[in-house]
């Protein structure tokens, strides 16, 4: 085979792979939106479900999803960013740092159902929090912690060393340098990680079904159980309650995740534009 032909073949194969990926995404999103969008209206978003979800809206699930996600992010972000600052700024490469990084990577690889089981045993049973927004949020926080640590650490390391040096050269302390130069410089990257965490939390089923519950009632406090949109969709589809309602829920979920991803990419674009 001549080099020319190999080249042309490679281009075709690579192009087709790209095309296939794009087609798959379009197909999945398109399918869900085509069947789900007609179901969505203001009433669907803002009223409670009726007859186990056969009719009515998904308002309690929207609230539940937002509450559980907000809690998870509110816990995981400070914890994750502080860990990342510690790993990137306060330690030299050594045994402990490598251990931390290994733990982070290992945590990221654990299937979400295991987090669900752990959250169920620890938060729901052991700490007596029951199926609740709190249990679900805490479980998701543990699940998204590695994502936030990883992206935040990378963002912090990407901050030019010269900025730190000049801060020290001007008499800044390490803490001042971290809070005034390093973190503001890393902020867009950190936010991107948080957005990825949001997307993971919003779409998670296995970890929350075991910790937040499946009730269709509107939560009144963090200790009330909720059914998130992802779980609602799962139950509607699996038990064959109503495919239309299931697709409507899925469409809302997908739009929410797409929205979050767009924000993440926009932020990513902003950092690269500024660094370049």
């Amino acid at each position, binding site marked *: 085979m001549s080099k020319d032909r190999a080249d042309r073949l490679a281009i075709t194969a690579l192009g087709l792979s790209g095309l296939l990926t794009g087609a798959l995404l379009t197909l999945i999103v398109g399918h869900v939106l085509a069947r789900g969008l007609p179901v969505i209206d203001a009433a669907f978003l803002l009223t409670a479900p009726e007859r186990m979800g056969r009719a009515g809206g998904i308002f309690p699930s929207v609230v539940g999803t937002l509450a559980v996600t907000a809690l998870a992010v509110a816990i995981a972000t400070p914890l994750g960013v502080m860990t990342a600052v510690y790993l990137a700024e306060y330690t030299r490469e050594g045994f402990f740092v490598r251990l931390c990084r290994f733990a982070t990577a290992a945590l990221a690889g654990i299937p979400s159902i295991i987090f669900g089981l752990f959250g169920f045993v620890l938060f729901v049973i052991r700490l007596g929090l029951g199926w609740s927004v709190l249990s679900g949020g805490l479980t998701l926080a543990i699940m998204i912690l590695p994502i936030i640590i990883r992206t935040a650490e990378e963002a912090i390391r990407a901050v*030019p060393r*010269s*900025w730190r*040096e*000049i*801060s*020290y*050269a*001007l*008499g*800044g*302390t390490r803490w*001042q340098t971290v809070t*005034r*130069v390093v973190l*503001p*410089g890393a902020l867009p990257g950190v936010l991107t990680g948080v957005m990825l965490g949001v997307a993971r939390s919003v779409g998670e089923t296995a970890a929350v079904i075991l910790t937040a519950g499946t009730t269709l009632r509107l939560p009144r406090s963090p200790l009330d159980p909720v059914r998130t949109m992802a779980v609602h969709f799962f139950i509607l589809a699996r038990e064959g309650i109503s495919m239309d309602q299931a697709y409507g829920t899925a469409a809302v979920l997908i739009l929410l995740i797409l929205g979050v991803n767009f924000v993440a990419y926009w932020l990513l674009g902003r950092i690269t534009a*500024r660094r370049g």
Partner: protein
Amino acid sequence: MTAGAGGHKLRTVNLSVFYHRTQALHGISAAFGERLITAIIGPSGCGKTTLLRCLNRMNDHLPGFRLTGEVLLDGQSIYRPGTDLRRLRTVVGMVFQRPNPFPLSVFANVAYGPRVHGVSDRMELWATVERALREVGLWEEMRRRLDRPAPDLPLGQQQLVCLARLLAVRPEVILLDEPCSALDPLATLRIEDLMRRLKCRYTVIIVTHSMRQAARVSDRTIFMLDGRLIEEGPTAAIFTSPRDRRTEDYITGKLG
């Protein structure tokens, strides 16, 4: 400001520097006169920048860094235990090779030093920023654009902002590490003019690749080779009648 012995603001005594097992500087004894411009020249890798960075302890955190000998600021060793690093770096300030403004406004860049030293009064910060920008001759151009991001400025102006950022903490010694190597000739001339004005008030030490630049601006010149100080003296003497063969070879372009 008190001058050290013999009008020397800074002196190194038999200064040797190691990174792990590699020796970067070999017994350097050099003096830097108060309110003079001293240029450090020599080929790449000769230890110029290492020497410069020893003068405000910017090498301390590099892996395997070890130092013997003394660096004396106003006759006081800066490597003695208990030295206040923040104060030292305020007295001996540094400007780097590439302009490196923070991704903040011009104002926030210049105000950074005073702020980390605890100044929060708005009026005081304004006064400091104005003084520093006037000193580098940037005030008239910048007064209406203080809120612009400093990294958006042309490189020459960025470097002047970096210099103003340094002057805002009122240093006594200014270390310049090839400050013009990223700049175009006009911006370079502007920095050189500024250096001549600055030496009325500050002790200036510049590491430079450009022998022309050393000849144009400096009062004294130090020539280094392979981590050793080869020759030191008045710039005119070094460039017209060097005593050492190697200095002559370098300035006539046969070496480096």
